[in-house]
């Protein structure tokens, strides 16, 4: 009973906030709606008993990715009028992508409805018990059957990270850089000099 109410509530919030992401006039508001959409999607995951995925969704997407989105969007000086103009032009492409996504999701849910969820296929293999938490179940599959795919995904991320660093790293010649070692190793003995001065006389360097 509570679960049904919670499902419809969170599903409705997800849909409405998803719509608002597209329709909000202010891009910062769009990102905030997006965060709400992620969050209620995480709630839906919890309802399905996939609490590990739900937490990961919140940690990765809401806690890290959306923060960067928000960061960038806030710093940008966006021309709202120009954004509006492109809307009609990009509409067909957007609709096409939406149609593809919808078709894929229908296919997936059809497969689950006919063949049963992957969870049921995996859990008995794992150790047959129903008291395996889903973090454990994912781990057992991810690090055994799919370990090469997992490593490959890690490699792709590493390449992307190195690429980002290479693109932004610039060594300008002639810039005096801070050497932290020198700063940390400074002591009163090496860092300062005590001079006795007579009143009225300066000090030559």
């Amino acid at each position, binding site marked *: *009973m*509570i679960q049904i109410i919670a499902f419809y509530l969170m599903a409705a919030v997800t849909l409405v906030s998803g719509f608002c992401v597209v329709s909000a006039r202010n891009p910062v508001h769009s990102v*905030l709606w997006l965060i709400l959409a992620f969050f209620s999607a995480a709630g839906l995951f919890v309802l399905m008993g996939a609490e590990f995925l739900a*937490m990961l969704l919140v*940690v990765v997407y809401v806690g890290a990715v959306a*923060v960067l989105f*928000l*960061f960038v969007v806030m710093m940008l000086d966006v021309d709202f009028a120009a954004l509006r103009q492109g809307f009609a032009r990009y509409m067909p492409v957007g609709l096409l992508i939406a149609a593809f996504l919808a078709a894929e999701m229908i296919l997936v849910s059809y497969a689950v409805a006919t063949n049963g969820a992957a969870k049921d296929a995996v859990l008995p293999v794992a150790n047959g018990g129903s008291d395996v*938490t889903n*973090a454990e179940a994912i781990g057992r599959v991810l690090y055994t059957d799919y370990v090469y795919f997992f490593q490959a995904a890690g490699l792709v991320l590493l390449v992307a990270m190195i690429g980002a660093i290479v693109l932004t790293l610039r060594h300008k010649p002639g810039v005096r850089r801070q050497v932290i070692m020198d700063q940390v190793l400074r002591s009163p003995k090496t860092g300062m000099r005590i001079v006795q001065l007579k009143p009225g006389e300066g000090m030559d360097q």
Partner: protein
Amino acid sequence: METTPTFWEGPVGWTLLTAGQIGLVMIWILLSLAFLLLADRKIWAGVQMRKGPNVVGAFGLLQSFADFLKFVLKEIVVPSGADKVVFLLAPLISFVLAFGAWAVIPLAPGWVVSDLNVGVLYLFAISSLGVYGIIMGGWASNSKYPFLGSLRSAAQMVSYEVSIGFVIITVILLAGTMNLRIIVELQQGWFWNWNVLGGGGLANLPIALVMIPMSVIFLISALAETNRPPFDLPEAESELVAGYQVEYSSTPYLLFMIGEYANIVLMCAMITVLFFGGWNPGFPTGFMDSWPDFFRSLFGFLVFFGKVIFFFFLFAMAKAIVPRYRYDQLMRLGWKVFLPTSLVAVALVAAWRVFGPAA
């Protein structure tokens, strides 16, 4: 044998029961916050050889309540250029998140609102959301200083979250579970079972060489994550007036402040639960077996709370005696010192689990 569910197991009773538990936890946190806030100011004052608040009530004990009334009774000023909805939403988010995280903290044997089996991840998720209150508040104020403060804070919190995450992973590796209740139960008995000393008895003691530095890194990262001195750059009052909260007054400001302090106490509770045995007093508690459940839980709760207060004392002392970091030093510490150190620690602890005596 089928037993008919009692009222408390039905949907309505369950909702009422959970709401009651949440209410109890919230009241306890708010009440203890009132006095911890005072303790914070008193410790700060003591270090600087001042008296601190001492007028309202005996020894100033009622100071926090006077402050509360002062904040609530003032007028809420919303700047005319501000984004009104986001401006008022930001402190609410800070407040709600700071309290939401307490749902999974095991306060005593059997005393926990929600016994999640991904409790650690939940804590991490909620505390990674805390940055939103600050960014939204800074942006919605439509003013330069708050915006600068919120940008600083976002960068700072995101940076230190990474090392906190890795430190938490070392604990998860040692405990082999993400359920906070089980993590605490594994640390029962003598104090060398605490995760800070390796967990799992004397055989695991060598890994304490890794875990003790990890607990220190966690404590320092917690200071940075909660924007406490020496890492209070987001509200560095000598540079940014008061950072993201410049434009806030009265109740919205109060919500920000309570959220901030609730987060600090939460971090103290996390250190207690993850590293220092939670409700376990550090010696075998076999003598309590004949006690009623309630008194055993109460004893555990007092132990837990005592540890939390001890770590809060450390936080307060750090505020009083450590000068503020420079921003580039803060970033360097997070990315170039803590991140590699905690990464190596994760590798070491994982290796210990695979090749060590516990394997």
